[in-house]
């Protein structure tokens, strides 16, 4: 068997170690990165271009929608509503500052003591702030005048800053001779005070009372024959006050604690 193997016509190969010539596997890392970057850049460019177009179209749609919304705004309706609101606001401002002259006169009725007559009334409104009221009172006795002054300063929430001035005490005989009237007033004085507008505001419910203006004489207030208002207030009688009817003006008159002048009352220009 050994000979047959040697006689073979097939050339024998050396039993040498076969060296594999495997080619070196090259990893083209830089190429991959390059390709990736390039494609990524191209993709990003395409994507941003598409998205920009989409966003621009969206902006155009928004512009159209805004235009449509603006076009639905009715300037005419807006003007109509604005004018109405303006008028309503102004009307409310006037209504809120409307003074009830009847309320002022009612309050004057209420605070005017019975022996007192109002000879004159002056009233002046100053803006929407105050009413300045000047009343010319007359009465026959000085104690009634003092009582009236006390009522004015203490009993009225409507009238503030009461100032009494021009107190004039006349002898009845002289006054009769000078004026010629039957019962001339012995004491006249002027009361000035201010009323905040908010204290005498117009009340529609009160104003629509059917007896408004005509209730004088039905309530506590009465109208005297001279057209002046008298009040049936419980005024202390003269003996209670302690003043003699025929008082001496030069004598020291003591009216008690009830007739002490309030500190805020200014008495000036007193003439006898």
């Amino acid at each position: 068997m050994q000979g047959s193997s040697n006689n073979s016509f097939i050339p024998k190969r050396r039993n040498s170690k076969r060296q594999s010539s495997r080619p070196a596997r090259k990893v083209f890392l830089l190429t991959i990165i390059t390709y990736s970057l390039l494609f990524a850049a191209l993709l990003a460019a395409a994507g941003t271009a598409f998205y920009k177009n989409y966003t621009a179209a969206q902006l155009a749609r928004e512009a159209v929608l805004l235009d449509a919304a603006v076009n639905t705004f009715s300037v005419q309706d807006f003007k109509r509503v604005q004018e109405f609101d303006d008028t309503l606001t102004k009307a409310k401002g006037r209504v809120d500052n409307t003074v009830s002259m009847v309320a002022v006169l009612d309050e004057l009725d209420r605070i005017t003591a019975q022996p007192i007559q109002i000879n004159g009334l002056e009233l002046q409104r100053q803006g929407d702030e105050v009413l300045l009221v000047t009343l010319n009172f007359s009465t026959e006795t000085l104690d009634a005048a003092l009582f009236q002054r006390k009522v004015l300063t203490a009993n009225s929430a409507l009238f503030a800053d009461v100032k009494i001035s021009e107190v004039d005490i006349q002898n009845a005989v002289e006054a009769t001779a000078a004026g010629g009237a039957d019962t001339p007033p012995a004491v006249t004085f002027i009361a000035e005070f201010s009323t905040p507008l908010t204290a005498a505001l117009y009340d529609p419910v009160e104003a629509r009372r059917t007896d408004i203006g005509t209730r004088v004489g039905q309530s506590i207030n009465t109208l005297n024959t001279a057209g002046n208002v008298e009040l049936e207030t419980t005024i202390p009688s003269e003996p209670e006050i302690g003043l003699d009817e025929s008082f001496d003006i030069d004598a020291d008159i003591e009216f008690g604690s009830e007739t002490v002048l309030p500190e805020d009352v200014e008495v000036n220009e007193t003439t006898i």
Partner: protein
Amino acid sequence: MKPLGLLSQLAAIGLAIAIVSFFVRPTFTDIGELQTEIQKYADERERVTDTNLALDQRVAELESISINNRARLATYMPSLLDEVAVLRDIEIIAQNAGVNYSEIQFNGEHTDDSDESRLADNDDLLVGQEFAVTIDGSYSRLKDFFSMLEQNEYPLQVYTLNVSVLEGGFLTAETTLVTYVTSVESEAE
């Protein structure tokens, strides 16, 4: 993948960087600006829509006010003054109150020179129109007159009042009444 040469690779990287730098980034900036614009437009549209809704609501409220009430408001606060009509109304009020009037006249535009008026925050821009009225009658009649003035369908506010005693138990009252209009023009002109 066919390998690139080094130069080609560098060129490709440079191209990619150029694409990103000169196209992608500016496009992104543009997109950001566009989105900001879109947001602004959307906000404005929302505001306009809200305004339209509010206006529609106000118009509906206005329409819900009866014609009668609207006419009363227009009567209370007219835009123009018809002084002849006001004079006639004062005359009718005086007649209804039972007072005698010796003078009812239109004095023109009312000016309040008081400190209180000047200092007040008067931004309603109303124009006062002044009427001088002299009436006489009993106290209750005068009170009726003022009560009727208060109940008038437009303001006739007393600005000055001077009451004095007449002979025979009557009073005379000189008063200045002011009514208001929203415009300075007179209807009679």
